[in-house]
């Protein structure tokens, strides 16, 4: 794959119910609060090489709370 697009992830806090699937499949991309609800790590930028993991997190979130934005 030549020069993949830069991706950004975002967790919609109103949709997230803390299933922790995102954290399980892509631990580098998410952080959890004291209640187990997820947030994107840092500003959500997906480091190069981790695009697949980002999509995996999105497609395993039962609440459809993970969004991916292509820059």
């Amino acid at each position, binding site marked *: 794959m030549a020069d993949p697009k830069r991706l950004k992830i975002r967790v919609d806090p109103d949709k997230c*119910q*803390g*299933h*922790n699937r995102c*954290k*399980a499949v892509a631990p580098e991309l998410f952080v*959890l609060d*004291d*209640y*187990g609800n997820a947030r994107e790590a840092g500003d959500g930028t997906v480091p190069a090489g981790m695009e697949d993991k980002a999509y*995996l997190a999105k*497609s*395993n*979130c*039962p*609440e*459809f709370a993970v969004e991916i934005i292509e820059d």
Partner: protein
Amino acid sequence: MRARPPVTDWATDFDHLDPRWVTDPFPIWDEMRTACPIAHTERFQGVYFPSRYADVRAVAYDTDHFSSRRIIVRETPPPPIPAPPITSDPPEHRPARMVLLPAFTPDAIKKLEPRTRALCNELIDKFIARGTADAAVEYAQEIPVRLIAHMLGLPENDGDLYRRWIKMVLEDGITDINAVIQASTEMQQYFMQHVQARQQAPGDDLISYLTTVEFKGQRLTPENVIGSLRLLLIAGIDTTWSGIGSCIWHLAKTPPDRIRLVKEPDLMPLAIEEFLRAYAPVTMAREVKQETTINGCTFKPGRMVLLSFPAANRDPEMFPDADKVVIDRKENRHAAFGLGIHRCIGSNLARLEMTVAVEELLKRIPEFTLDGNVTWSEGTVRGPRKLPIRFA
């Protein structure tokens, strides 16, 4: 026991305790999904059964029209026995849930992993030399009972008591309301003495956490604490027992999947999610609070809705090859732990128990087959209750 006549039409007269449903519900749900995606019955004083993922999701999300004050379909509704947060609706639900959540985050649960592994091996030690075992009774059942006791700081050997109460609430209680009331009274007495002891001398366990945690500057009342303990016991044991049992059942009857997991242990997390999807143990219910229409079906107030996460998980519109167990399925938004605000608080614990139970069993006994008749529980929680395996 079976006063109800056999079912002749699943769309308008279903009975979720019918022996055919209990043994193998999947073909029935597939038929319903195409013929009548929101089935109903006049049995149990009126119940609806959505079988499509989208409709299950719609009901789970709509807390305005569907209440959790009754979450089990029974022949006679009991006097309400509140068990917040599972029986709560907004706005009471959120604070009751927030108190429990910190004890169940992935980091908090991770600490239980060593005890879980040790526990699984202690159980395997007891039957490995025999060459046969009832994997439901001697293995799957014992793990959640002992682990929850460990977590609460109670004697691991009190498991028999817990199982008795759970059976009274979840199974006998469907047709015999006195069983529910009796179990609640016994649990109340049992937990009261432990709560009082922790108030005197708190330790490093979940009961101590609950007796000392402050919410908006206030401690929980002993009644609140006991309510939560009752819920954790009822919600955490049969469910996980069933989840572990279904994994083992599948692996016993599907050698290629078992062999693959032995060879590729890294697949375990995906496989566990797939088992949760395909054999989701828990079907909840809601009471219709206000009339509403979903997918062309009108829901009448006072009636119940079975919220079948297991049926939703088999919907081919949501999951390609929904009727196949694909242990390396990559996209898996299954609903085994519910959808929306009541998402299972114990999901991280349940996943740990299931993963470790299957891993340790495969390490010690990589080859096993079914060895006789399997029986299944009925009602709210579905899983094997007799699971004879042979490995000699």
